[in-house]
């Protein structure tokens, strides 16, 4: 059997349904758009927080071990070799006193203070350091405790430098964002599902005579069902397009980047858009199946 006439009939009927019930179709479109906007927005926010977490985690897993001024170069090399050989250490890199001063001068804007110190005979107060890049954040405390007792280490108020608090805090924020997003999506999703179901029931009521005749002449249930399922899917996909458009617009206007998608990345943006389209189609299709079920009772 040639399937194209059937597909043509189903699509034409679905579009007719949308147009005939334009008011309720628009109401469905609005609620589904809100749902998808909430879901898409939550995904983007969680993704952004996740990116911040990774960035912070990457920075926080760097342990700066300050070295005492009197330590010989050979001792430093030995310590560096010893630390670099540990499983949890990805990389150990020596930073000299001069390099630390250059970093403070250009990175932190402390050039004038350093120059003043030098001119008054104070020399360079910044210690040399071994900068350890660790495999994961949990290793920071272990390595920190291990190196602090070494006689090679600068014995000031801060013999090492790392930030152990930022990760749990960020993880807490992400969890809150995920829960809030899930609740938001669940509530609006339920409302959207109800509206789609009502919309399809209305469409089925409007076309009750047509459905009755289709049943009487022997149309299969799926043949009767598909136009309504397509109608729901059309509404869902249209809503996804609107929601994606709004998200892109917001990203373009308020995002951190100068160009489209620069803030969240083109690849992730495409994943979000595809996800919205699939979610819209599924939401519309499922709502329609629920809506049409009663009308098909023989």
């Amino acid at each position, binding site marked *: *059997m*040639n*399937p*194209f*006439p*059937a597909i*043509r*009939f189903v699509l034409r009927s679905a579009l007719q349904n949308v147009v005939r019930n334009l008011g309720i179709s628009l109401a469905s479109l609005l609620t589904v758009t809100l749902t998808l906007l909430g879901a898409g927005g939550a995904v983007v926010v969680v993704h952004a927080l996740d990116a911040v977490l990774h960035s912070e985690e990457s920075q926080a897993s760097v342990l700066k071990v300050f070295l005492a001024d009197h330590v010989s170069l050979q001792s430093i090399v030995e310590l560096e070799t010893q630390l670099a050989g540990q499983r949890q250490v990805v990389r150990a890199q020596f930073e000299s006193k001069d390099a630390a001063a250059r970093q403070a001068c250009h990175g932190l804007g402390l050039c004038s203070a350093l120059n003043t110190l030098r001119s008054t005979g104070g020399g360079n107060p910044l210690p040399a350091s071994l900068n350890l890049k660790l495999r994961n954040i949990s290793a920071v405390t272990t390595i920190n405790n291990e190196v602090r007792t070494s006689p090679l280490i600068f014995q000031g108020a801060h013999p090492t430098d790392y930030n152990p608090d930022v990760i749990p805090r960020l993880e807490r924020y992400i969890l809150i964002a995920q829960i809030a997003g899930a609740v938001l999506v669940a509530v609006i999703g339920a409302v959207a599902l109800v509206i789609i179901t009502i919309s399809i029931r209305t469409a089925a009521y409007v076309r009750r*005579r*047509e459905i*009755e*005749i*289709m*049943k*009487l*002449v*022997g*149309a*299969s*249930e799926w*043949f*009767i069902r598909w136009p309504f399922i397509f109608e729901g899917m059309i509404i869902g996909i249209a809503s996804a397009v609107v929601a994606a458009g709004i998200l892109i617009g917001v990203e373009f206007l308020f995002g951190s980047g100068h160009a489209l998608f620069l803030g969240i990345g083109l690849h992730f943006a495409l994943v979000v858009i595809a996800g919205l389209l699939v979610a819209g189609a599924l939401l519309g299709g499922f709502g329609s199946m629920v809506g049409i079920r009663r009308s098909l009772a*023989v």
Partner: protein
Amino acid sequence: MGRTGQPPARPIIVFERVSKTYENGNPALEDVSFQVHPKDFLFVVGASGAGKSTMVRLLIREEVASRGHVLVDGQDLRRLRRRQLPRLRRKMGIVFQDYKLLPNLTVEQNVAFAIQVTNPGRRHLKEKVAEALYIVGLEDKLLSYPGQLSGGEQQRVAIARALVHRPRIFLADEPTGNLDPDTSWGIVQLLLQINHRGTTVLVATHNREIVDLCRQRVIAVEGGRIVRDEAQGQYLQGGTATP
């Protein structure tokens, strides 16, 4: 023996001790048994509420018998699965008192609709629609809308739609209920003509005048029971119908 002198074929419709009680407790049919053979013409007569329409609803399996068996073309409808229902209904052409036409479609589109929703890839759709409309005498009304037609013409469109996929059984539930006597007679003539083409026809009606004129087999129902079946040439006990 059948019309042709050969042994009668297997009955195409069988009611075997069928009773039907609706969910509200109202009994519609009580212990009804009869058979219809292929190419037969049968009137089911009775007053409103006698159980005629329930018989039609059982045949198209809109309802299921509470007791007994309804068989169509050898298939027990009680055992019919829901997904098999469309196939059963494609064997039948069905018309009702209220025509059930789609007002926003032309005559041609209304008739074609029956094929489009059951067999959308079917070839020669236009020719088949034209043939069905020719049989009912409406070949010149292709582009008219139901609202532009008389009651009789609308019923003819409904008949064409029921005929277009060449059913083996034609069921008509009060097909002349909304029509004047002359038009009703025209519709019945058309049903006889369809029967002569080899289709089994069952007509449920309360119009006894037409039934008497046609001289076909008649089953009379009263209070959900068969009180007369002319094919058996006898009156049944408790019947009050006149011959």
